[in-house]
């Protein structure tokens, strides 16, 4: 599998995402000004503060040349993972439902959180052991997942809510404790916590690696 990781001016976690994705395959950094996705099998839109997060988190990055190609790639069924700022970018681009509002506590907050995998049969979670919580760090200022009630009902009914915070750990005030959602087609997934920062026991947990392993299964299964 070859994973492309986007790099915007202001991206911070792109190298971290690259190191994590290297554990399951090849990687390449994709510059924001280039439209060529270099034949990747999957795209990661990484964390950070793309374009300084001016105007609104992710609002400028969605208009970048590389995102035009990513939108097309996603429409053709390509795997796209958005982490933190990447989740915000994908929501702004209309590839994922909902929006990420400033945290309920009004502060940038770092915490190691535990995530319940609601949907274990997606292209991003198939390697996650069922009924086990994933211990993954979260760190953001605008991570409060918001959608209107009808959309929330529909997302839940259609299995698009993929991961939830344990209720007592929902520090950002996300509606229905939602930490990550997928699109209807199932090939685009965004979450606020950082699975790429949970791939090595030396620096924390290894639970996040399951997400990358699931993506490899989805891609390499498709190649067979």
């Amino acid at each position, binding site marked *: 599998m070859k994973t492309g990781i986007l790099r915007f001016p*202001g991206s911070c976690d792109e190298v971290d995402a690259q190191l994590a994705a290297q554990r399951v395959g090849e990687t390449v950094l994709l510059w924001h000004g280039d439209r060529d996705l270099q034949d990747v099998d999957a795209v990661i839109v990484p964390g950070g503060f793309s374009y300084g997060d001016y105007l609104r988190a992710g609002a400028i990055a969605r208009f970048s040349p590389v995102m035009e190609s990513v939108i097309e790639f996603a429409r053709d069924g390509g795997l796209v993972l958005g982490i933190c700022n990447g989740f915000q970018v994908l929501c702004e681009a209309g590839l994922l439902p909902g929006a990420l509002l400033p945290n309920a506590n009004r502060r940038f907050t770092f915490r190691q959180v535990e995530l319940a995998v609601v949907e274990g049969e997606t292209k991003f979670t198939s390697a996650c052991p069922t009924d086990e919580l994933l211990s993954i760090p979260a760190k953001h200022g605008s991570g409060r997942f918001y959608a209107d009630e009808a959309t929330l009902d529909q997302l839940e009914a259609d299995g698009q809510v993929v991961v939830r915070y344990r209720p007592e750990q929902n520090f950002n005030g996300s509606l229905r404790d939602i930490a990550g959602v997928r699109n209807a087609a199932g090939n685009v997934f965004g979450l606020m916590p950082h699975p790429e920062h949970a791939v090595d026991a030396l620096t924390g947990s290894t639970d996040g690696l399951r997400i990358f392993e699931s993506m490899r299964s989805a891609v390499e299964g498709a190649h067979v």
Partner: protein
Amino acid sequence: MSEQLPELKDAIALGLTEAEYELVCEKQGSPPNQVELAMYSLLWSEHCAYKHSKKLLVTLPTEGPAVVMGPGENAGAVDVGDGLICAFKVESHNHPSAVEPFQGAATGVGGILRDIFAIGARPIAVLDSLRFGDIEESERSRYLLEHAVAGIGHYGNSIGVPTVGGEVYFEGPYEQNCLVNAMALGLGPREQLMRSAAAGVGNVVLIYGASTGRDGIGGASVLASAELGEADDDKRPTVQVGDPFEEKKLMECSLELLELGLIVSLQDLGAAGLTSSACEMASKGEVGIDIDVRKVPLREADMEPFEIMVSESQERMLCVIEPKDVEAVRAICDKWEVSSAAIGEVTGTRLMRIYSDDELVGEMPVEALVDDCPIYDLAPQKPSEPLYPPPTARLDGSESVGDALLALIGSPNVASRRPLFEQYDPIVQSRTVRRPEQADAAVLALPNGSALAVSIDGNGRRVAADPYRGTLGVVLECASNLACVGAQPLGTTNNLNFGNPEKPHVAWQLTEAVRAIADACTALEAPIVGGNVSLYNEGASGPIYPTPVIGMVGLLPDATRAGRLGFVEEGEAIALVGPFQPSLAASELSKLRGEPLPDELPEVDIEAIRDAQAAVRGAVRDGLIDSAHDIAEGGIATAIAECALAGSIGASVEIEAGEDVWQACFGEAPGGFICCGHATAMAQLAERTKVTLIGKVGGDRLEITLGPEKIELGLDELRQRHRALESVFQ
């Protein structure tokens, strides 16, 4: 240009003395014009010329086997093996933060990060050291704390450099003059190490980064080199405004330029802006520089030449490059959407010549600007009267030892720092092996399996009580923190935060503190590789506590064996390790009791403590012990409580009460550790240093027996008190 030359009164308004102004006239051969006077006043300010501290700083040890770059460059650097260097430095942004805490603290972080990448290293960590007034009494101090922390987080988080550690204390003498010190570490290939000396007559001087505006004019001379007054609101325009997005681009752009080998020399623009950067580069390279201010990209078109030369606009770098590389350099700048402009040339004249288009608007010998500022002798005098009023009493003496422990655990100086550090990203760059509250020092993995450890410390109250021994304690605590994770010191940085050095008692504090840093760093073989001096930290009610802040970087061979502070396993033995001689003098307990500062602290046996550190370090490296924690504020009882809270497991210990139960329980001194491990391991450790077995890990309660007294507290109750600072951030 200006027909009317400035006069003596203008020089005095800019911070020069009459004698200094006369010396400027002599060096120039005539009275300086506006541009020249502006440049002299900045370069001859305390902030740039270190005119009251230079004679002391030369007494510090600066050489050692690991030192690659010592003081004098943008940052120091030590060798960490496999062709890599670690660059590090601490700097202060005290006065800007007292005037505007969010931007003051944010730009403090921005400035120290530029110092790191200016020498060719990628910034990999930030730590901060903060001091505010009594937050239980002062609304202003709570405001400063909240906004300074937000500013540090805003800048560090946005730029993708983890904030991995720090410290904060609250004491009355910082009420009017808070301290915001930021330390940064960088990592880079040794062969990419960059110096700031300009070289190559005919080479191009190029500025890149943000455009230059009117912000921060006079920051170094007006704000940083004078005492703060009551009505400092009018100084707010002298505080710069930071843009971490601009700095992120500037950093990536600089690192790419360095990697491509396109830069001859590099310098960030900090205090005193273009004036300081260009003159420092010319001075170190023993060359001259011509600058045309009309080529500098401006935010406001009508800026005067002197304004362009002294502006402290953030996120700018100055480099010297070969003429053939101009196009390549500008192409990299364009890629990162960073503006750039060739503004001048290196000359053989040893002159700084400032042009506005073709008109020469300033001409000064580089040597006069940089080297000829008068250096003053201090007149140290130990004060005969106490300098500081006693703190407000929080305990009336009727408490049990258990109540006192709860009060200490919940006091602002001891309570958990989580409400602060959880506003910072500690893990970006995937290197952080030990986060805040996991160990006494932060630990950062290196590519070859070893790891860096870093700690920052200060203790103004103890230094105020005894500048020499108090400062010894600060340096030793830093090294103890490193020992607790298994690291050996490689080098040290320091930030000397003191009051007005022209006052004899402040001069005495400064002299004694520097003597202690020299003695301790020599004994620990942890030389000073760089640092900063921040003087004139005083308001109407007097000077701050003398606050030398020490940052120390060390190395441990195996990142997987990095120590932890929390107790680990039920049934393990708990030991008091090291030559610990507790005393209540200047302790947290004495503060809570409202006692005045004592006149001195007990003697410190540096060698014995160094040997204990070596023993603990060895035991952590060998995997002999499972936790190690340095005994600091609040004494042994507080340290044991912290180990229990960090490990979420209780403990039962018995401490020899001696003559004074309170002293045994809450007395402080450098050189003591609380360690846990299996009994056989403790016996092995006892062959290396003094070890007293005091109890066992287990349960969900903390039980401490001291002769007739007994403390029994549930971990939940302790944890509740330990979270006291949360209320400030509600």
